[in-house]
């Protein structure tokens, strides 16, 4: 139980304590950088501006001291419930994401995931679909036309991309053969020979020696490069941040489903949206970038080096720390990628968003499943 609480607190401290405030800062700083202007640097504490790092704290203070306005005619219970429903999925998704492997200390095993559920990915999809309710209820409960329009857009967009999100990773499950996230990372904690599949055709021996030695980590992104692009697109559309920001559409429908929200009630929507950025980063890193695994250095190899040098307990701990740092580094890279996409592309029109989902990503992800299946069955069947 103590172990569980420590793991949960660690995950929360990293995601909500470090990533969340930093991302609200990075968002503005990167926007400033990409638009060639001076970014957030106004918040100061006795003359200290600290390159705008005080802005997250200023945001929280400002949101907390604003008036809590519930519009006339609104459903007061649902109006209060909607932001809570928005933020809960973002936090509880973290429960199944492994931030380290399984380490043995004598008799005890330390598994660095909060809840090691057999069907972890199904849980991720199920929890992700709860977020839709937050947006829909917010718009419905507000008694405002703009809110309702925004929530209708949000619901249609989110349920559409949920379908394709599920279908676009099936190819990865076929390659890794499991739905349990810690197992998926262990399956990726290895290397494969890039041209190794030629072995099944009896052509591998004819290759020059240097070609046959090229290896890649068996990460999802190398096994399923196409699935990676499809999944990243879908999960970014789920988060409703630009370029998929039609549900908020600030140039058309005021602020969409959270038009009638002020103070911390709005703050919860804002927190959920920003928290989802590192959560998406962690999920995509686990599925496609090998989670905590260090490329070309599987856990046994690393332990084999560290344990004789640093001793049993200390060596394992060192390995654990290296793995957690690798995981966080991958999350940072994916957060940066999302920020770069968000500030590079202009917002899509609503019909473009829906066309992309139903007419492009859906057929492509079904095709991806069948091409992956045929490839694996044919190549492995020749053995």
């Amino acid at each position, binding site marked *: 139980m103590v172990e569980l609480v420590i793991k949960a607190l660690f995950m929360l401290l990293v995601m909500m304590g470090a990533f969340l405030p930093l991302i609200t800062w990075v968002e503005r700083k990167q926007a400033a950088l990409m638009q060639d202007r001076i970014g957030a640097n106004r918040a100061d504490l006795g003359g200290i501006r600290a390159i705008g790092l005080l802005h997250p704290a200023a945001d929280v203070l400002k949101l907390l001291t604003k008036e809590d306005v519930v519009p006339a005619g609104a459903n007061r219970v649902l109006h209060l419930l909607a932001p*809570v429903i928005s933020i809960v999925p973002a936090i509880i998704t973290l429960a199944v994401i492994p931030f380290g492997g399984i380490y043995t200390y004598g008799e005890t095993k330390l598994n660095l995931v909060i809840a*090691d559920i057999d069907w972890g990915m199904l849980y991720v999809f199920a929890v992700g679909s709860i977020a839709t309710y937050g947006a829909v209820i917010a718009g419905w409960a507000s008694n*405002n036309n703009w809110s309702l329009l925004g929530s209708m857009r949000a619901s249609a967009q989110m349920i559409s991309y949920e379908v394709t999100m599920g279908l676009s990773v099936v190819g990865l499950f076929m390659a890794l053969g499991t*739905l349990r996230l810690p197992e998926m990372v262990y399956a990726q904690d290895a290397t494969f020979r890039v041209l190794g599949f030629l072995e099944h055709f009896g052509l591998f021996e004819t290759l020059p020696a240097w070609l046959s030695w090229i290896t890649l980590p068996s990460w999802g992104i190398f096994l399923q490069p196409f699935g990676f692009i499809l999944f990243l697109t879908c999960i970014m559309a789920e988060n409703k941040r630009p370029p998929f920001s039609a549900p908020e559409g600030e140039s058309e429908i005021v602020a969409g489903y959270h038009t009638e929200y002020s103070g911390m*009630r709005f703050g919860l929507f804002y927190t959920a949206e920003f928290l989802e950025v590192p959560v998406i980063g962690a999920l995509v890193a686990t599925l496609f970038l090998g989670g905590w695994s260090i490329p070309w250095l599987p856990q046994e190899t690393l332990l084999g080096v560290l344990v004789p040098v640093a001793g049993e307990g200390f060596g394992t701990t060192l390995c654990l720390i290296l793995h957690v740092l690798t995981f966080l580094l991958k999350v940072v890279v994916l957060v940066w990628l999302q920020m770069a996409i968000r500030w590079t592309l202009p917002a899509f029109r609503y019909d473009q968003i829906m066309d992309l989902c139903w007419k492009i990503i859906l*057929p492509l992800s079904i095709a991806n*499943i069948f091409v992956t299946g045929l490839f694996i069955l044919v190549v492995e069947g020749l053995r």
Partner: protein
Amino acid sequence: MLAEFNGVLLMLAIALLVAAGMLTGHRLLGPSRRFDEKLEPFECGEKQIVSPHQRFSVKFYLVAMLFVIFDLEAVFFLPYGALFRELGWFGFGAISVFTVPLVVGLLYEWKKGALEW
């Protein structure tokens, strides 16, 4: 068996606490100066003319129906993906038979214009 859900319950409790804490802090720290005009729903500076609680475009219902069909398909695909190697060619044939009507259905909806916005 159910012990693995302790972590989920713990995270759920923390999430609810975070949300409740933020909302309570806001209630305590925020001012409260209410008057009728402030409580009016926002409508570009005008009084609200049309109530939002009325019928809206049928397109959204259509998307919801498509979602039910294709999300069920996705749910069937997930365990198939995980058991793909054990099932081999038999599973592949079965899932092909399962997918063909759905793809035909998708093409039909497409041609009928259900996917146009």
